[in-house]
C-alpha cells in the first residue's frame, strides 16, 4: 500500500511556474531604475532637520527637533532604495541600446551614486561604501569606510564617469532629458564642490582636484542646475506643500529664522519676499529667533515663503550660482588666477544668478552688490562668500550645514546651551543589524565618546 502511494507521489513535487510572482515585473531597463533613483533626490533636501542644522527655519507650533533633541537619523532608505537601484545598473546592467548609449547609462548611474554617497558621508561621517550594497553576494554586514577613503573613491568614480560620456541622449531622464553634456558638467561640478570641502583638511589635494574639475568643465548656465522639479500631481508633489497646504496636512510649522530675515533685510535683498511671507500682524518681515518658543503666535512672524511650498516647487540641489561661489572662493584662495578682482567678479555673478534662480530676474542686482553688508571687500572675502552662499542655498539645509561646518559662517546660535551638531548619529538599529562594524567605526572616529553628534568629520577642521 505504501509502495503504491510512493509511486503515485513520484511526480508530486513539480508545480511548474505557479510560484513565479505575476504581480511584479521581471525585467527593468537601466534607465527605469535610474529614474526611480532620481525620484529620491528631493529627499536630500526636503527634510526639516536639515533646515534646523543650517538654522534656516525654526519650528513654530511644536518645537522639538529644532532644539537638537534627536541626534540620530537613518540612512537606510538612501541605501536600500536609490543606491541599490544604481548599484544594480552598475553591476548587472540590462543591455538595451534603445535607451541610449550604454556608456551614458552607466556614467549617469555613477554620477548619481557619487552624489548620494557624498551626501551620506557629509551627514554621518564614516559609512559603508566599498562593501556596501552587496547583500546578494552575501555581505549583510559591511565594514564602515573612512570618510577620507570615500572621498578618494568618489573622486575616482566621478573622474571615470566624466571620461566615459559619449554623444547621444538616454531615455527616462527626469533631470536633464538625457543630455550627456549636462551630466558631464554635473559630474565635474561635484568634483569641484567636494574639492572645496577639503579646503581645511587637505588644502593641497583640494587645490589639485579643484583645478582638475575646472579644466574638465563645470556648470556654465542655469540650465545645468541639478534641480528636481516637483509636479502639480499628488504623486510627485513638494514635501513642503504636502505638510503646509490646508488641502493636505495643514501644518504651519516653520518660520524663517531671525538671522536669515535680518541678513536679507539689511541688504534690501529682493529674495526676501520669496523666502518668507510678510507677517499677518502688520505686513512687515520679522524672522523667528532660532530657539524661541514664541512661534506659536503665528501672526507675529514671517512664515515659510509661498514659493517654496507650492505643489510643484522645485528642489534646487546643485546650482550654477553655487558653482560661481565656489569659483569665487577658489580664486580668493589663489587656486585660480585673477586675485580679488576676479573673485569679486565671480561673487557678483553668483549673486546675480541666485537672484534669477529665486526671483526670475536680476532686478535689484546692482543695488544689492553695492550694499555695505554685501559688497565684496578683499579683507573679508571668504566670510562674505560664505554668508552669501548660505543665503543662496536657502532650503538646502544639509549642504548649507556642511559649508557652515567647514567655514564657520554665518554665526549660528546655540540653543538650550547646545551648539549646532557637527554630524548626525548613526541609526540605532545599526547596533543590532551591523553591531560589530558600527561599534568599530564609532571607536575609530570618536574614541570613548560614543556615537557623538558633536564628533568631527574628517574634513571638519576648525
Amino acid at each position, binding site marked *: 500500500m505504501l509502495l503504491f502511494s510512493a509511486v503515485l507521489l513520484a511526480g508530486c513535487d513539480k*508545480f511548474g511556474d505557479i510560484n513565479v510572482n505575476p504581480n511584479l515585473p521581471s525585467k527593468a531597463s537601466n534607465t527605469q531604475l535610474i529614474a526611480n533613483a532620481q525620484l529620491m533626490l528631493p529627499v536630500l533636501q526636503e527634510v526639516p532637520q536639515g533646515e534646523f542644522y543650517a538654522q534656516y527655519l525654526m519650528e513654530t507650533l511644536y518645537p522639538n527637533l529644532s532644539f537638537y533633541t534627536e541626534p540620530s537619523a537613518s540612512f537606510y532608505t538612501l541605501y536600500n532604495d536609490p543606491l541599490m537601484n544604481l548599484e544594480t545598473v552598475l553591476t548587472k546592467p540590462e543591455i538595451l541600446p534603445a535607451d541610449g548609449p550604454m556608456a551614458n547609462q552607466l556614467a549617469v548611474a555613477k554620477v548619481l551614486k557619487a552624489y548620494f554617497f557624498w551626501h551620506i558621508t557629509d551627514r554621518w561621517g564614516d559609512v559603508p561604501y566599498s562593501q556596501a550594497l552587496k547583500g546578494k553576494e552575501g555581505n549583510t554586514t559591511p565594514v564602515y569606510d573612512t570618510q577620507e577613503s570615500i572621498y578618494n573613491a568618489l573622486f575616482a568614480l566621478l573622474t571615470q564617469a566624466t571620461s566615459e560620456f559619449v554623444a547621444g541622449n538616454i531615455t527616462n531622464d527626469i533631470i536633464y532629458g538625457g543630455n550627456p553634456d549636462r551630466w558631464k558638467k554635473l559630474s565635474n561640478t561635484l568634483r569641484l564642490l567636494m574639492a572645496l570641502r577639503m579646503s581645511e583638511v587637505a588644502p593641497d589635494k583640494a587645490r589639485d582636484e579643484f583645478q582638475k574639475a575646472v579644466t574638465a568643465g563645470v556648470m556654465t548656465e542655469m540650465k545645468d542646475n541639478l534641480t528636481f522639479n516637483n509636479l502639480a*500631481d499628488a*504623486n510627485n508633489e513638494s514635501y513642503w506643500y504636502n505638510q503646509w497646504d490646508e488641502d493636505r496636512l495643514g501644518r504651519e510649522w516653520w518660520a524663517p529664522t531671525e538671522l536669515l530675515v535680518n541678513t536679507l533685510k539689511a541688504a534690501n535683498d529682493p529674495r526676501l519676499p520669496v523666502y518668507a511671507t510678510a507677517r499677518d500682524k502688520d505686513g512687515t518681515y520679522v524672522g523667528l529667533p532660532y530657539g524661541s518658543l514664541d512661534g506659536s503666535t503665528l501672526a507675529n512672524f514671517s512664515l515659510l515663503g509661498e514659493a517654496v511650498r507650492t505643489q510643484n516647487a522645485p528642489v534646487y540641489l546643485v546650482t550654477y550660482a553655487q558653482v560661481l561661489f565656489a569659483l569665487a572662493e577658489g580664486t580668493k584662495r589663489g587656486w585660480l588666477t585673477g586675485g580679488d578682482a576676479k573673485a569679486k567678479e565671480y561673487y557678483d555673478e553668483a549673486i546675480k544668478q541666485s537672484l534669477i534662480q529665486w526671483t526670475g530676474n536680476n532686478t535689484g542686482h546692482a543695488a544689492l552688490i553695492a550694499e555695505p553688508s554685501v559688497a565684496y571687500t578683499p579683507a573679508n572675502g571668504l566670510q562674505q562668500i560664505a554668508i552669501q552662499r548660505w543665503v543662496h542655498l536657502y532650503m538646502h539645509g544639509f549642504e548649507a550645514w556642511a559649508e557652515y561646518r567647514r567655514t564657520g559662517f554665518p554665526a549660528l546660535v546655540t540653543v538650550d546651551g547646545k551648539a549646532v551638531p557637527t554630524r548626525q548619529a548613526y541609526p540605532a538599529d545599526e547596533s543590532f543589524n551591523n553591531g560589530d562594524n558600527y561599534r568599530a567605526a564609532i571607536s575609530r572616529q570618536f574614541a570613548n565618546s560614543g556615537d557623538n553628534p558633536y564628533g568631527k568629520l574628517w574634513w571638519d577642521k576648525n
Partner: protein
Amino acid sequence: MGGNAYHRKYTYMTGSTVGGLNSPDYFNLAASVDRPDIANYILEKKIRSMYGLVSFGFKNRYFLEATLRNDNSSTLIQGNNSYWYPSFSASYVFSDDLKWKPLSYGKLRLSYAQAGSDLGVYQTNGDLAIGTVYTLPPPDGETVNTIYVRDVLLNPDIKPAFAHSYEAGVDLKFLDNRLGLDFTWYLQKNVNQILPLTLSSTSGYASTIINAGMIRNKGIEVSLSATPVRNSFFTWQTLFNFSRNRSMVVELADNVNVYLHDNTRYSQVDSYLNSYVGEEFGSLIGKAYQRDSATGMILLDNNNMPMYTAATHNFGTVLPDMTGGWQNTFRIWKFDVGAMIDWQKGGQFFSRTAMLAHKTGIAPATAEMNDRGKNVRDPIADGGGVKVKGISNSTKQYVEAYVDAKTYYRTHLGTHVYEEWLMDASYIKLRELRLGYTFEKKDLGRLPIQSINLAFIARNPAMIWQKAPKGLDPSELSAGANSISWRESGQANTVRSYGVNLIVNF
C-alpha cells in the same frame, strides 16, 4: 489513509482616485485628478498531501496512535518542497489497574509530533517592483515609468520549517469525578522556522527570509476542577487553570544574534521589540533614563532635565510570568449562573497613550500641585515647577531642583524617555457573567422541543484589578499582525457588552 489536494487562488483588483475628483459628486475612477492608484493581484498556491493514520487499543487501557504525512508545496523551490512528518501518541489509563477507590480516572499521556510548514507564496522570486510614474513637463511630455529593486533579499534556498512537539501529561479525577487535576508539560522546538530577518540596509536590502536555527517554547499547563457541591437543587462547579510559557531563541543564523519582531517610531524616536539569541523571547528596547552607576539615580543635565540614552536600552522581556483563568458555574434549581475570570501575572507593555497624555498636558500629573503648594505649571520663580531629584552629570552631586513643567513633560519625558511609560501588564479581569434559565420539556407543553435555555450574558463586565494605571487595559493589547503584544497606542476603550443567548434543543 488519505490524500489531499489543496488549491488556493485569490485575485483582487482595486482602484482609487488620487488628488481629488475632477467633478463634484462624480465618484468614479475616471474622475481622478492625478493618475489613479490601480492595483491588480493574483495569488495561487497548491499543496498536495498524503497521509496515513493507524491506531491501536489494548485491553481498553493502552492506546497508541501514529500518523505520517507528506506535503508537497508549490511555494518552495523544487527539491526543497516535499517533506514528511510523523507523530506518535500513547496513553495509558492506569486507574483501572490501580484499583484505588478515590481515583475514579487516571490517564498518563505522552506524545511526540512533528509538523512541517511551508512558505507564503512568491517569496522565492520577484526582485523588482513598479515605482512612481513621473510625467515630464512640456515640451517633452514623456511619461517616465520607473521601476525599483525591492528591498527584500530573496532567499531561494528556503527549506520547510518543522516544529517538534513533545508533550507529557497526566489527567486525574478523584471521588467520582468530583475533583480533577490535569497537568501537562510541553516542549516545542521550532527548527528552521521561516522568519523575516531585518538586515542592515547598507547591504542594499532591508530584510530577508531565513530558516532560523532553533526557537524553543516550553511550559506547563495545570488545571484543577472541582464540584464542591452537587445535589438536585444546587450544584457548584469550579475550574482553575494556569499556564506558564517560556520561549527562547536558541539559534538564529550565522552571525545573526538579533531578531526584530516589530518597531515603532514617533517624533523621530524609535522603540523595538527584539529577541536575542540565548535570552528570553520578546525584549523591549527603547530610550531609558541615564543613571548614575553607583546609586542608580537619574542623571540630570545642566538645565536639571533628566538625561536619556539612545534607543538601545533593553527593558527585558514583555512576556508574562503566568496566565490563567478561574471559572465558576452554579446551578440553582433551573437557573444557571456563571462567572469567568481571566488573569495574568507579569508582562509589560509600552503605553503611548500615557506618553502622549503627558506630552500634550492632558494628564492630571501635568497640572498637579508640587510640594511647595503651587501648581507645577506656575513659573518656577513663583514656586511652581516639577520637582526633580537626581545626580548632576557635570558636578556628580545630588541635586533637587524645580524645572519647567512643559519642557519636562513635553520635550523630555513625553518624547524621549520611554522608560517612564512602561507598564506592568498584570491584571485580574472578570470576562463574562452569565445568568440563564432552562425550560424543560415538561414546561413547554406540546412543542416538539426538548429544552430551551435562555441566558443573559455580560461580557467584560469589570476589571477586578490591574497594575497599569486606570484608563489602560492590559488585557486588550492589540498585537495586530504580531504574535506578541508589547505596546498600545491610542487603545480604544474596552467595551462592556450585554446580550441574550438562546439555545433550543430539538
